[in-house]
Each structure stands twice: as structure tokens, then as C-alpha cells.
């Protein structure tokens, strides 16, 4: 009796006709309803989320690529700026050095000229002072000599004679001296 199970449709061969028309209808209806419900409540939203994620990933990749390019550009910009700044700084230092040299030369020259000027004026002053002193000394000598001579001679000679005499004497003395 076990062999009965192996015959196609053995379970319902006895009391029903082979074709269960109602079952066919029920199968189709249930499957269609299930598919529509799932599409509306499960697969649709799930597909939406998967699509959304796909879009998100794509846009994220794009954004990452963009920001990479931008950062690369900025880096280049910074690098060139740094280079520029460095050369500029070098130029400034060189300029300052040059200017310093020039200024030093100028200061030295000015100082030298000032020193020369001071020395010359000092020399000139000394010279005039010496001349004046000599002149004063001469005068003193003259008057002293007159006084001495008048005392020695004991006599009054005229002022003019006296003077001429003395001048002569001094000139002689100067020649001797």
C-alpha cells in the first residue's frame, strides 16, 4: 500500500476530479496579491533605500574627488606663495645689507670730513691766536724797552724819536733773532 504514494495525484485520485479549478484560481489570486503587497510595502521601499544609498555613495565619491582636487590646488597655491615670500624676504635682506653698506660709507665719509674741518678750524684759530700773542708781546717789549731806556738815559726824548729808535732796534733784534 506504500506504493500508492508514488503514483501521481494518488492523494486525490479517489473522490475528486483531477483538476481543482478553484485551487488554480486561489493560487493565482494569492500569489498576485502577495506580489502586489510586497511590492508596495517591502520591495519598493527597500529598492528605494538601496537606490538612495547608491546615489549617496556616488555623490560622496564625487565630493571626495572634488575636495581632493581643490586641496591639491590650494597646496600648489600655498607652495608658490611660500616660494614667492622666501625670494621676497631674501631680496629684502640683500637690499638692507646693501643699503647698510652704503649708509656706513656715507657716515664714515661725513665723519671724516667733519673731523678734517674741525682740525683745520682749530689750526687756523691757533695760528691767529699765536699771531695776536706775538703782536702783544712785541708791544709790551717795546714799551718796556722805552721805559728802561728812558730810565737809563735819564732824559726825555721825544716820543717820535724814541719810537723810531726802538722800532729800528727791534727790527735789528728780529733780524739777529
Amino acid at each position, binding site marked *: 500500500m506504500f506504493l500508492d504514494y508514488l503514483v501521481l495525484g494518488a492523494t*486525490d485520485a479517489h473522490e475528486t476530479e483531477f483538476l*481543482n479549478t478553484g485551487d488554480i484560481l486561489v*493560487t493565482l489570486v494569492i*500569489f498576485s496579491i502577495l506580489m502586489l503587497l510586497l511590492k508596495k510595502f517591502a520591495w519598493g521601499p527597500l529598492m528605494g533605500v538601496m537606490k538612495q544609498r547608491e546615489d549617496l555613495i556616488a555623490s560622496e565619491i564625487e565630493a571626495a574627488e572634488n575636495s581632493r582636487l581643490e586641496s591639491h590646488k590650494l597646496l600648489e597655491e600655498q607652495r608658490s606663495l611660500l616660494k614667492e615670500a622666501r625670494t621676497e624676504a631674501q631680496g629684502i635682506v640683500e637690499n638692507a645689507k646693501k643699503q647698510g653698506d652704503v649708509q656706513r660709507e656715507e657716515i664714515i665719509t661725513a665723519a671724516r670730513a667733519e673731523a678734517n674741518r674741525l682740525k683745520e678750524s682749530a689750526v687756523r684759530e691757533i695760528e691767529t691766536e699765536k699771531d695776536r700773542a706775538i703782536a702783544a708781546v712785541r708791544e709790551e717789549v717795546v714799551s718796556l724797552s722805552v721805559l728802561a731806556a728812558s730810565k737809563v738815559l735819564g732824559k726825555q726824548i721825544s716820543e717820535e724819536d724814541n719810537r723810531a729808535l726802538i722800532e729800528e732796534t727791534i727790527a735789528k733784534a728780529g733780524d739777529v733773532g
Partner: protein
Amino acid sequence: MHHKNPTVEWLGLTFNLSNVLMLSVTALIVFLIAISATRRLSLKPTGMQNFMEWLMDFVKGIIKSNMDWKTGGRFHVLGITVLMFIFVANMLGLPFSIIVNGELWWKSPTADPTITMTLAVMVVVLTHFYAIKMKGLSEYGKDYLRPLPFLFPLKIIEEFANTLTLGLRLYGNIYAGEVLLGLLAGLGSAGIAGFAGALIPTMAWQGFSIFVGTIQAFIFCMLTMVYMAHKVNSDH
């Protein structure tokens, strides 16, 4: 051990109430699984959402291996529903079967040839429908004369053979599994010795039936897409 079916006549149609019950249970389980898995959708998937997304990608892979995604994308929902529906249907009969008053109530709905053939015919009709819709009636008709006109009779036979094998392959695998499980269960309930003898084979056969049920669900989905691609693709 021989059992009848709980049949009812209504509006001139014959209903097998067991089939109606099991189809409803299958649809309910599939619906609950799908809904619970997609209840809280987020861009960063967790838990069941991961599984569902894997399933979607799996079916997508099946479709992509057969046709262009641009034409195949519309069959995505059909493919996933077929896969899950048949898988759950195959699994339902494995843990037990319930017989009330000699009438078989709980079993795999796919262990009934009426249901598997209905699904198969539905799939084949859909392939014809989409072929006409996407390529036009004349192009669809010319396909019967390709690659050579004298193969026309074979083309006609092919359509029926496809339908028949698609439905009966599923039915045969699942029905055979349930028959053997029924025999092993009968042996197991016969006595202590019978239980000891039936324990290992029953477990082995249940494990194998899980494998077969999974494979059959995959094959049904795969063949659905193969037939669809065969009809829809303009060059083959």
C-alpha cells in the same frame, strides 16, 4: 495511512481547502518576513535588512546573468516573490503534516501538482505577455520561425515542455520528499525499535529536503528568468 483531501464545491469550482489554507499560510509568512525585515529601513543596513538586501542582489544577479538589466529590472519583484514564496512553501511540509479525520490539512502547498503547474503556467504566460509587449506581435510571431522555419513544430512543443517540466520538477521533488518523510514518520511511530531505526534517516532526509527545497526555489526562479530572457531578448 491513506488520506483524502478536504474538498469543497463552490460556484461550480472545486476547492481543496488544504491548498487554500497552506497557500494563505505561505503568503502570510512571506509577507511577515518581508515586512519585518523592511520595517526600519536605513542607509546603514542592520540585521534583517542586510539579509533582504543580499536576497535582492542575489535575484538581481540571477536576472543579470540572463539578460540586460535595463530589460530585466522590471522582473526583479517577480523574481524575489517567486523565490521567497516557493522556498517558504517547500519548507512548510518538512517539520510535520497534519491529518484530521483522514483528511490531509498541513503539507507543502508545492507538493500539489495543481499549484506548481499553476505557477509554471503563470510564469510562461507572463513570458509570452512581455514578449508581445516589448517586441510587438509580429516580431513575437517571427520568433517561432527562428532560427529555421521547419523547426516551428519543435518550437511549439518546447513551450509546452517548458511549462510541464517547470511545474512538475518542483512538484516531484517536494512531493517525493514528503512521501518519504511520511513513510519514515509511520515507521518512527510504530514502536521503540521503529523509532530508533527511523530517527537517523528522518533527520538526514529532513536535512536533505531543506537542501532540495532551497535548490528547487532557486531553480524555479532561475528558469523563470531564463524563459523570460529567451522570449524577451531580441537576439539569441
